């Protein structure tokens, strides 16, 4: 394997939005390298550019300036069809609001990304069922999102993100809509999947308790990286933060 190529490389990324004629600098020069298999947490107050950064890395928005590489591939240089394939095959998305398709059952939701890769139906269904079992929802295959609790919905979303065995999981505040214990279970699940599959996980969070399990934590403020810390040094900081 190409160990030298990072899973994600962000080079001097700027993003400027036009909001009612005014320029909003959401990102002001982000540089970041994320090796394969890392669990990276991105922290920062709301409005610090977390979601914007996720959109850049996930290829759902383009930077105003700078480049994003996924597995060495420059996202600005590939056509939109290849972009779609990359989103489908290489990246798994997890959202704060779960974003399950309301009319589809848990199993159909998980099978959906496989449709776009042309996986035949019986195979899709089988794999979706396996994935749901692996997140502890083996008995909920035919339930619609509205029939599931928040934590269960997020589990379905995680299973869906894993459907095409992505190299990178992008989780934008996955615990933001969940209570503390459910949220903690979700983060632990993400960590377990990362450990089992060697998937790179990039997870935005507000919650200082959740960062214990990350390998590194990036602190964003006003669209810039304020600080990057390894896990060890971090425990202390977290306590300091909390005593504030």
């Amino acid at each position, binding site marked *: 394997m190409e160990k030298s190529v990072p899973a994600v490389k962000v080079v001097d990324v700027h993003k400027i939005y036009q909001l009612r004629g005014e320029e909003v600098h959401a990102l002001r020069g982000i540089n970041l390298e994320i090796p394969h298999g890392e669990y990276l947490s991105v922290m920062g107050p709301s409005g610090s550019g977390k979601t914007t950064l996720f*959109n850049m890395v996930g290829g759902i928005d383009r930077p105003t300036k700078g480049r994003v590489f996924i597995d060495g591939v420059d996202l600005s240089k590939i056509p939109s069809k290849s972009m*779609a*394939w990359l989103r489908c*095959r*290489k990246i798994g998305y997890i959202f704060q609001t779960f974003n399950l398709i309301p009319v*589809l059952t848990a199993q159909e939701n998980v099978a*959906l990304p496989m*449709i776009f890769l042309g996986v035949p139906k019986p195979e899709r269904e089988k794999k979706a069922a396996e994935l749901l079992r692996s997140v502890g929802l083996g008995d909920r295959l035919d339930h619609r999102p509205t029939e599931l609790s928040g934590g269960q919905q997020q589990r379905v979303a995680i299973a869906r993100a894993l459907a095409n065995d992505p190299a990178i999981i992008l989780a934008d505040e996955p615990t933001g809509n969940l209570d503390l214990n459910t949220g903690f279970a979700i983060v632990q699940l993400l960590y377990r999947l990362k450990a089992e599959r060697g998937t790179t996980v990039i997870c935005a969070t507000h919650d200082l308790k959740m960062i214990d399990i990350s390998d590194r934590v990036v602190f964003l403020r006003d669209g810039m990286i304020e600080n990057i810390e390894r896990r060890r040094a971090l425990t202390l900081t977290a306590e300091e933060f909390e005593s504030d």
Partner: protein
Amino acid sequence: MSSKEEDSSMEIGSISFPVTEAFRYCVESIRKRFTRALITAISILLGIAFYVTIRSMNTILPNVGQQPPQAYQMLMAIIALLVCGVGIVNSMLMSVTERYKEIGTIKCLGATDTSVLEIFLIEALLLGLLGGVIGAFAGWIAAVGIFSFQFGIGGVFPAGKTAIVMLQYLRYIAEAVGISVFLSVVAAAYPAFYASRHPAEALRYEI
């Protein structure tokens, strides 16, 4: 600085989303959102029925000896067209807009702009066709029914002119179905295309 320089062995594949899958997705979506789809279809249906009724009157009225001024007939047809057009566009726009987040999500899951358009245009086509065909016949039957009640069947299908009149009715019906399908598809295409091109925005969208 080419991407080759630090290229990995990654080979970029391609997305396959055959029309049959798009069709299946639409049918599922209509089936499972049946009430919502029904409301959209009914609002299309009512607009089209109104249009066909007004158009049919243009044929019926002279036959029963009532000849309203040409300008008045024109005006009625135009108003009918506007009412039905605005109704169809509105209900189609609404039904796609409330699914912005779904569009953003399926873009993340690997849908291309073309797959998003396929899904929503096929759905609009089906609803437009359903609402259009049922609405057109309902409107025609309403016009024929009301006038034959007042003037007898001869007023609606005058002896000797049945074939000509029937052709005219059919023309109105075909016209109405065409309008229905066209407006539904165009009204759905705009928001679907927009959301598909701006997935980040679509994902943030809350109704």
